């Protein structure tokens, strides 16, 4: 009986935890090792108060040296590039002088009652484990805008938090 009790609690916790994610725009992966490539999956669970999503803009945090976006049927992909103040070293030793600072999917139409994923491959920085990277997302809809750009603040529950990724030590 005790075992099933535990099972029930674990099960309900899992459901509650996963269900909590479903209300926000989130990253599939919550933790990833430093200095590795990651296929980052952004989940869009709904529109803006019923209105269909027409554009997704994701701000790439500093330190990510490579961004490759997966094309998406029905959506146009574009990126905004920023020149680096000090050139970084790429995965094959080449010098990197500019990075992608923003990825934009536009021209599509995602109904409020549907869900979808937006994918890109990124190279995570070689930063201290425990560092949290934030990927603020602006979701433009036919009517209105959701800004998933809030960063954690002591004693405040966030209405529209920015998707976050925690760096862990390389295995």
């Amino acid at each position: 009986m005790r075992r099933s009790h535990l099972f029930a609690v674990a099960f309900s916790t899992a459901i509650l935890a996963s269900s909590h994610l479903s209300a926000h725009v989130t990253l599939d992966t919550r933790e990833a090792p430093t200095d590795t490539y990651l296929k980052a999956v952004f989940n869009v669970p709904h529109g803006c108060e019923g209105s269909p999503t027409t554009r997704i803009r994701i701000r790439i945090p500093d330190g990510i040296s490579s961004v490759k976006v997966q094309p998406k049927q029905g959506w146009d992909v574009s990126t905004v590039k920023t020149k680096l103040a000090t050139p970084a070293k790429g995965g094959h030793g080449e010098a990197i002088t500019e990075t992608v600072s923003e990825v934009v999917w536009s021209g599509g139409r995602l109904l409020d009652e549907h869900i979808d994923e937006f994918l890109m491959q990124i190279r995570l920085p070689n930063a201290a484990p425990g560092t949290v990277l934030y990927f603020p997302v602006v979701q433009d809809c036919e009517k209105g805008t959701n800004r998933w750009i809030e960063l954690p603040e002591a004693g405040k529950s966030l209405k529209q938090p920015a998707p976050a990724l925690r760096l862990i030590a390389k295995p």
Partner: protein
Amino acid sequence: MRVFLVLILAICSLGWDGEARAHAVLLETVPSDRSVVAQSPPAIVLRFNETVQPILVQIRGDGGMMIPADLSMVDQELRVAPRGPLAAGGYILSYRVTSADSHPVAGSFLFAVGAAPAAWAAPATSAATSSGWVIAAGISRAIFLAATLIVIGASIFWLVMGGQVPMRPIVFGMAGIAMAAAIVAIYLQGGLLLDAANVRPWESELWRIGYASTRGTASLMAFGGLVVVAGALFWGSRARRPVVGIGIVIVIASFALSGHAATASPRWIAIPTLLFHVAVVAFWLGSLMPLLSVLRQPRALRLAAFKRFSEIAFFVVPQLVVAGAILATLQIQRPDALFASSYGMILALKIVLVGALFVLAACNRWILMPEMTEDSPGYADRFRRTILAELGLGFAILCVTAFLSQTVPPRSVAEHESFAAAASRDTGHTSLTVAGDRKALLMVAPARPGRNTMRVRIFGADEQPIDPLELAIELSNPSAGIEPLRRALASVGDGYFEHVGPEMSVAGRWIVRIEVLVTDFEKASFENELTVK
């Protein structure tokens, strides 16, 4: 045991169901926020996207009086029925409900029964400053400028001529007009600042706010200087000349206290240039009236007076042009802005009129002056006509200048200073909150229950004001049970954002949360507290 497990799973799935659709959302309210209904509604309806449980819902009337009401839930509608009909006036409804996911959803909105309460007057954006006050203040300013400059200029001319030219009674009349206009300016400035269609013209608040503004101080100083000048000229003995000089200096110095010309940066250039500009213009326009009367004086005095005026004018007028150009550059920054703003257009008009005045002045100097020395027949009439034309043109330029100082780069620095003065008095509220490397300045006046003006300015890491994409405030009063009431602030220029409204209707401790959208991807928030009493 199995029953227990099923029960837990059932509860979880219920929870999941609620969670998946996110938190409850308030879809609409009847009456809606800031709307006016003709008669007391049987119930106020809050329609949510799902069934909710009320936790605390209350209606408060004018002055925060609690209105007893019954709550009922019909489908997804929360109905709040007052126990008796609501009297005419403004109300605030605050709600805190919980949805299926047990996440509280809270907020407030305003509505009114009968007519919109006085405290609800539309937010005063810079463009909407009621034109009545602007026109009245502009006309009063033009009269003040004309009368003051004529008095000061005539006195300077009198000093320059060693007290030999007669002082015409009209100068004393002008002094009286200038003093009256200086006092009226204090009242009109109060009207401009409170900008209130709904402030009654006889309210003493107008005088108080006007007095606290820099224009109020400047007006009082000019008034004092004019009293000294006119008094010394009227009653003075031989020793009166230094006293007249002191009075002139006081009046001219008063121009440094107020107005965007004096507060343009860098001020160490702006203020000396402005004072020089005022002094030269005063000398020019103010000399015209004594010169008119000198035309009837004996030839020796007449020639001496005109020669003296001509010499000084020939020397200072080019400098006047330079000073004017410097002052215009400080305001406009770039030549193309001259035609891009209404301020620039008025300034361009002023430049054209000044050009015409120069043509007249040149005509006086190079055509009529030689005629006077040669005593050509009829020169006096021609001279009188051109001097009168110069005076008329001068007055037109002053009118344009007066409106220039009202239209101004939207909401001038001086106006912000006087609002800051109002907000920092014992009844107002001013605070600076820090979040990260940014700061938020919040000013509230008068911080009394009812209509309040809230103004916010955000500073970046470099201590300079930043221009955010959006700025909103959330007002709540936890002790009175008033949940956050969100209001977007409108930019009023110079980095200031403003909201005017009756939201803080209840005395007590209010929490003002400032939410700033700095860039598309960056938000900042600041939390302030203030006491409304």
